[in-house]
């Protein structure tokens, strides 16, 4: 099996889809001639031409809205936001037109929006956001957030095959840092959670870039405690069964979320556990997340707000001692 970076895995998924399904169409700013701000579609325009790797005007509502139109007449558009943050400019089309279409009209909108998200590299308040919770709170939109290269590829295939709008949260910090074995060709990864590391004393629940942080945090220094790491992978649908199963086995939970803490994905997971996993709990449902602050630019400030290995380890230690 070839070893790919997270970014290469995303590129490979897109390339495989373009090759195997001529309904697939990539749309975005600077994705064609330039190959994308992060070079995810580097070289694509040469192979697939400007009609299938479309350089759009600078207009996010336009990108999402026209993609919806293309989707309902049979295309499979995959839109790139140059940074996830810019989805705020296409928000209305996504939540109101795409998200509600099937429920209201029985009309499917097979649309993928790729959202390069997350902080950790001095991107500042407008290039570091993790906006997934906005879409979790908007009915009719699926949301996935891979943490490995293999899942990035498989989930992207599944997202493109899915007849519904899917927000594909690709964490920029993982692009070149994560590298693992990825099956070649088209395969689907289900929208379910995955035990990234089994354990029985405590479970750390995370997704996206917080999975490697969690894995590093629990890899040692916890005095031999058996700590599980559950990688959610999919936020909508949320794999409640897997979450509750981990909680039942481990009884202690730390939820790690890079997003601002209020009403984040982590809040939803905590609420779920407090309601349906209450009887398994042997301690408070602990959260580690970014405080409610725009992500600052300067490294010392940014590092002070983003959840890191130390904070996660500290939270685990305290809870294990509870």
């Amino acid at each position, binding site marked *: 099996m070839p070893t790919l970076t997270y970014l290469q895995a995303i590129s490979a998924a897109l390339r495989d889809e373009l090759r195997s399904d001529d309904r697939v169409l990539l749309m975005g700013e600077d994705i064609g001639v330039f190959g994308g701000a992060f070079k995810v579609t580097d070289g694509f325009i040469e192979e697939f031409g400007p009609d299938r790797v479309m350089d759009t005007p600078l207009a996010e509502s336009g990108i999402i809205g026209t993609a919806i139109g293309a989707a309902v007449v049979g295309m499979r558009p995959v839109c790139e936001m140059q940074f996830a943050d810019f989805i705020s400019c296409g928000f209305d089309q996504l939540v109101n*037109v795409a998200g509600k279409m099937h429920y*209201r009209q029985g009309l499917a909108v097979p649309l993928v929006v790729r959202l390069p998200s997350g902080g950790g590299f001095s991107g500042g308040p407008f290039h570091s956001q993790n906006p997934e919770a906005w879409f979790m709170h908007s009915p009719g939109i699926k949301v996935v957030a891979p943490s490995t290269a293999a899942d990035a590829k498989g989930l992207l295939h599944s997202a493109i095959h899915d007849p519904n709008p899917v927000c594909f949260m690709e964490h920029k910090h993982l692009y070149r840092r994560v590298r693992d074995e990825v099956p070649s060709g088209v395969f689907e990864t289900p929208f379910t959670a995955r035990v990234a590391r089994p354990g029985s004393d405590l479970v750390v629940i995370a997704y996206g870039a917080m999975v490697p942080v969690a894995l590093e945090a629990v890899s040692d220094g916890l005095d031999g405690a058996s700590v599980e790491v559950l990688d959610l992978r999919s936020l909508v649908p949320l794999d409640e069964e897997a979450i509750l199963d981990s909680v039942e086995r481990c009884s202690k939970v730390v939820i790690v979320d890079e997003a601002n803490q209020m009403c984040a994905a982590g809040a939803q997971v905590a609420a779920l556990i407090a309601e349906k996993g209450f009887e398994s709990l042997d301690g408070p449902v602990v959260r580690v997340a970014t405080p409610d602050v725009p992500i600052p630019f300067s490294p010392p400030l940014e590092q002070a707000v983003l959840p890191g290995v130390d904070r996660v380890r500290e939270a685990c230690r305290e809870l294990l001692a509870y």
Partner: protein
Amino acid sequence: MATHTAEPAAAGAAAVEHLTLEDRVWLLRAMLLMRGLEERAMTLYRQGKVPGSFYDGYGQEAVSAGAAFAMGPRDRLCILHRDLAAHLIRGVTPTRILAQYMGRAMGITGGRDGNVHFGDRRLGCVGMVSMLPDMTLVATGMAMAFKLRGEQRCAMTWFGDGSTSRGDFHEAMNWAGVQKLPVVFILENNQYAYSTPLDKQFAVDPVERAAAYGFVGVTVDGNDVEAMFEAARAARERALAGDGPTLIEAVTMRMHGHAAHDDMKYVPKEQVEEWRKRDPIERQEKRLRDLGEDVDGLRASVKAEIDAAAEEALAAPMPDPSTAIDGVFCAGEAEPLGDGQAPWSGFFGGEA
């Protein structure tokens, strides 16, 4: 890049060239059905049978009837809230429309969405959302797919004078202009956006913008159904020939309040009286009477159809509450949009 400034609408004569007598009766029939259905729905609303609010297009029937009539079966439409005649022309039955207003299970959205927020996907229509004019982008995207696939089809959508102030209008017009897409935009200038008059929405008539987006803009008498038809027909021809989008400004008047609760106090009485003389239905009736058509017979048959539809819709059940959370997501394959009925181009299809 050829840009054109607005020019006066095609005269009636040009329209007649492309319309048979039967077509011209069809246009009247669609308008009569629209008006009759909306009047009936208003009565049902007053009787408490139509939940929520109620919006109509009284006096604007020619805009949707004329424009939709020029479309082909495989064209795709996003029909707005004052454009009921377009649904009728595509083949939506009066019964399902009244059921839709009343939130019945057999309404087009099965009670999930209300009033005119619908589109029958089996007839080539994508239902509007409230956020105006979001559908301009959806129509643009459909046209983009047609062009990418080299298909001889176009997309059409409507929107109001007020809707031109929103960013999505611009993003759609600009996108359509840059990519020279086969899309027809119908700007329904009915003098008001809710209570807001034109001079609070724009300093210059937005049809002037078409040239600045690189395509044709035309102004049409929106109360002349045949002129509307002709402008749309020509726009469709341009679209299919690869000559890009057209912005058609249909000048008309919203003769009722924004919605049922609106007494329209903000509109000068004389303005309404002035426009009453230009009623689009009376105008088309006169044309057809002059040609010896039995307009009274047509009226009677339309009325009977509406009566029957109302009876059937009133007897239809409300949706089952246990289904309320079903279908947020599509579980199977994405079903494509179907083709619509298109009387002028000779295609009758759609639902039974």
